[in-house]
């Protein structure tokens, strides 16, 4: 099992992701450079958090043109698992690989804190190790994480069970107070129709070691590991 972690100029969670893959997924992790033209035969790809190209103009707007993104798109079209975390989610939306967009938090402030998210769909390759309705504690750290899309898109995402995570309170209730960044319908993460492309704002790679406050993110990496051995 080899897992690729893409480094864009300005990525700053690439190393965290790399370590999480080794520690929580127990797989070989390799860095993929944004200028690369192949994925070096990896079995899954992570687009990590950070501020690619400074997030200038719009988060993820410039990164999506990196040479590596063509490979990532084709890999995803062949059904390969691709997860975008935080800035990675923003890049996937900008690249049109996931619907909708991430705009400035309603508070206009950057938010950094552990939040509760509810698992909305337990499915491979990324969330099968979780129970549906399970409440996770995972840190968020972003200034542009407010998920928006037009109503049909939102209805379709919900109708087809493509919402992966929602912001919730400790009891798992979906409330406005629990909606960390003001996202439409408390959406914290979504997948594409095939389910092999995931985008989420919270940082599972920061929640794989209880010493740092929570181990709830490990399930995402375990799900992927299971899927890769059976696939």
């Amino acid at each position, binding site marked *: 099992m080899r897992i690729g972690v893409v480094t864009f100029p300005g990525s700053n969670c690439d190393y965290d992701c790399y370590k999480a893959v080794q520690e929580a997924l127990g797989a070989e992790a390799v860095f993929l450079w944004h200028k690369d033209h192949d994925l070096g035969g990896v079995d899954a790809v992570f687009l990590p958090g950070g501020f690619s190209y400074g997030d200038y103009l719009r988060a993820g*707007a410039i990164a999506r043109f990196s040479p590596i993104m063509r490979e990532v798109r084709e890999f995803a079209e062949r059904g390969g698992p691709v997860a975008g975390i935080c800035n990675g989610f923003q890049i996937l939306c900008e690249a049109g690989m996931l619907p909708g967009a991430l705009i400035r938090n309603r508070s206009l402030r950057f938010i950094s804190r552990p939040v509760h998210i509810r698992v909305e769909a337990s499915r491979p390759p990324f969330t099968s190790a979780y129970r549906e309705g399970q409440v996770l504690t995972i840190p968020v750290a972003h200034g542009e994480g407010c998920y928006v899309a037009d109503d049909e898109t939102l209805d379709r995402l919900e109708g087809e069970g493509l919402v992966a995570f929602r912001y919730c309170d400790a009891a798992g209730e979906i409330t406005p107070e629990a909606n960390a960044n003001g996202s439409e319908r408390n959406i914290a993460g979504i997948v594409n129709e095939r389910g092999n492309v995931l985008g989420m704002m919270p940082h599972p790679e920061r929640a794989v070691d209880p010493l740092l406050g929570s181990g709830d993110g490990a399930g995402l990496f375990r799900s992927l590991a299971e899927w890769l051995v059976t696939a």
Partner: protein
Amino acid sequence: MSEYRVEVRVVPREGILDPQGKAVAGALKSLGFGGVGEVHVGRLVTLGLSADSAEAAETAATEMCRQLLANPVTEDFEVRVLEAAGR
């Protein structure tokens, strides 16, 4: 080839959440400004562009918006080619 100053106006699409616009409206009211209605905060991109004609410049800039300067999901844009920047 002549030099043009092109101005690209990118504004949040009608009906899409505009947290900045909302916040600014609120702030203006609490600063005591009366008669303030809808407020929207967008982006203004100005660029120097050398092209064969104003039309060519406009076509290029429009393509830049499609590809990069505006987000098709959340933003509308408008391109204006200004008088050839004297150079």
